[in-house]
């Protein structure tokens, strides 16, 4: 299982809490970094401002991206990511409460690797995170493998 960092772009602290809990329950030990809005996510990935120190803000192997975000939407973040030459192959999983077809279509067109609707119950969320661990962290071979950092 990879030990690379995961960037969760999520403005809802309850979702962040539940995600962290589910990951803990699932036994995921990868360092989880949070960006609370779209601009923060771009800054993090660009390594600017508050995220200039890569020891504090290591490049993630997977970005879990919400769509409805302050300042810059998830789609805009995704679009920016795919415009960066070094992030062309970065794994981006969209995790959103929207099940709108347009959101889904747009996300895939912009280069999302996966599109997942936030599960409505804790049990379902737990099931999802377990699957995530197995699929993305265990079996999936990522193109980008940044240097792992200790959390």
């Amino acid at each position, binding site marked *: 299982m990879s030990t690379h960092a995961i960037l969760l772009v999520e403005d809802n602290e*309850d979702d962040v*809490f*539940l995600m962290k*809990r589910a990951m803990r329950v699932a036994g995921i030990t990868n360092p989880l970094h949070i960006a609370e809005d779209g601009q923060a996510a771009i800054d993090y990935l660009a390594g600017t401002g508050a995220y200039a120190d890569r020891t504090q803000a290591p490049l993630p192997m997977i970005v879990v991206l919400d769509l409805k975000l302050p300042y810059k939407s998830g789609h805009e973040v995704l679009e920016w990511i795919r415009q960066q030459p070094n992030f062309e192959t970065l794994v981006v999983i969209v995790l959103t*409460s*929207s*099940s709108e077809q347009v959101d889904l279509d747009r996300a895939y067109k912009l280069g999302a690797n996966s599109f997942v609707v936030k599960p*409505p*119950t*804790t049990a379902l969320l737990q099931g999802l995170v377990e699957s995530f661990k197995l699929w993305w962290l265990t079996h999936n071979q990522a193109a980008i493998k940044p240097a792992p950092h200790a959390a």
Partner: protein
Amino acid sequence: MPTSADRERRQLESDLRDASSRFQAVLGAAEIGTWTWDLIADRVIPDDNMRHIFVLPEIAPSYPLAEFLKVIHPDDLPHVKTTIDRALASDSGKFEDDYRVIQPGGVIRWITARGTFFRDENQRPVNMSGVLIDITARKQAEAERDSLLQRERAARLQADALNARLNFSLSALALGDWVWDVATDVMTLSDRSADIYGVAPGSGLTREAMRALLHPDDRDRAREIARRSVETRSDYSNEYRVQHATRGLRWVAVRGRPVFAADGTLTSMMGVSQDITERHAQEQSVIELSRQLRAQTEHFETTLSNLNDFVYSFDREGRVTYANRSLLKLWNQPTLQDVLGKSFKQLGYPDDLAARHLAEIAQVIATRQAYTGETPYLTPTGEWVFFQYIFSPIFDEHGEVSAIAGTTRNTTERKQTELALASAREELLRHAETLEATVSERTARLQETIGELEAFSYSVSHDMRAPLRAMQGYADTLLEDYAPKLDAEATRHLTRIRKNAERLELLVRDILSYSRVAKENIQLTAIPLQAFLENLLPQLPNLQPPVAHVRYQRPLPVVLGHEAYLSQIFTNLLGNAVKFISKGVIPVIDILAEDQGASIKITIQDNGLGIAPEHFARIFNIFGRVYPDKQFEGTGIGLSIVKKAVQRMGGEVGVESKLGEGSRFWFTLAKA
């Protein structure tokens, strides 16, 4: 003393003188002149009569011949000279010629002259003597006679011609002539007359016998007319009926003339007769026809003149040939005679209108079709009126347009009504437009509002999910992570929180589904129902045996629909079928398809509780629940989504059921 011989001689001389003077007297009375011409001396000795005839300028005892020749008419002189020469050359020496002499004042006298040349022993003519006779009177009488003869001949020719013409006329006109002689009381009839009266030619009937041939009612009048003709010495004419022996009653016209002797007594009556039965009949029919025509004309005139409409006709040049009284009144003209033959301009039409009417008449002539027009018109009294008129062609026997007939109606009132109507219509239209604008504006606003509401409900529903997830998540966290620390009541309360959150989550999900179905644009595709169900059913865990039995007809048709909607419909309906059922009963569900021609009716029949008919309409409404939530959990939106989804696919939805006997939910879809 005179001797007896002297006496005798004196007596003889006296006698001779007497005889000579008597001879002269006779000659003088007869205007016969004598002369002697001495050729040797060229002296002519005239007597007094000759002097009277030749009236020479000088008085002399004798004259040269040339003096006499001077007064002879130039046209006659050559032949006089020729006659003289011929007489000189002839053995007899006789001279005879007629010639004219011109007396002073231009009086011309005709002379006939005779003479004889005497020769000497050498046969030389030495003198000549002769007589002159003034034949002027005779010549005049002769000329007069010739002229008379000529005139008589001309008159006779003229009379002959007249007679020929008369005869021709008589025969051409079938005229018979007759004469009644007073002295003999015999009526002499020509063949034609005899034929007209139906008697034998030359039968010599008396006048009264002839009158007996007349119709009894006409006899007295015939007699009276003839009597008056004689009395007034003038021609008469009459028409009477003749009782013809073979042809029956005939009408005969007669013209007669009394003929009187020099002393004024009547000698005869002459005249001509003509059978006019046919003409009479024709006349009668002509009279009858013209009477009818007059009556008809009067009838038409009365009828046309009582019309308020104008009735009229023009010739091809647009001149009036008829106008009824109404039109005359408009034109302010007393009688038809005042307008006959007048042009529009002469009737005071303005130039443009006159030109227009003439063009329209030309058009009617050219197209041979009636022309309908409408025009405003300023009456002589200064009033504006509207006229609608029709000009129609009148064809002659050759099919040519010979005239134009027209009628004109005052349409002012109608025009005003029309105008009022048009303005009312326009106003109405404006109102309607305003109304339409208002309606479409309000509709747009309403749709906007609905859209906003939908967007709002969607966004509200959507935004509710995060807090719900949080509520659930925290409740779960507490229940799972802190279970040892929680007492039973705390655990129950947390469970209630989680339960309610789950319920709310379901509600939100259904509302979002409904909204999505209501607003999405979808494309219908062909869906093979059987394959579709074979794929769908395994995904629904509570429909698998032994929990429930779902059976469907095989094969199932292909329908036109939207796969996601169809999944939603089956999921909801099948979900209801297994939910609303008596405890302990295993659901058995049949899916049937019925071909309805253009569409397929799909029925889902269950063995559940059934629904009372009074609820049929309500259950398809949002939150239209039959059972309280406590008894059967649900949001009350499921059937609304079904109904909306079916409608969006162009179908209909319904239910047949009886309480306790299961339900049959059905919906239709177009055949693929």
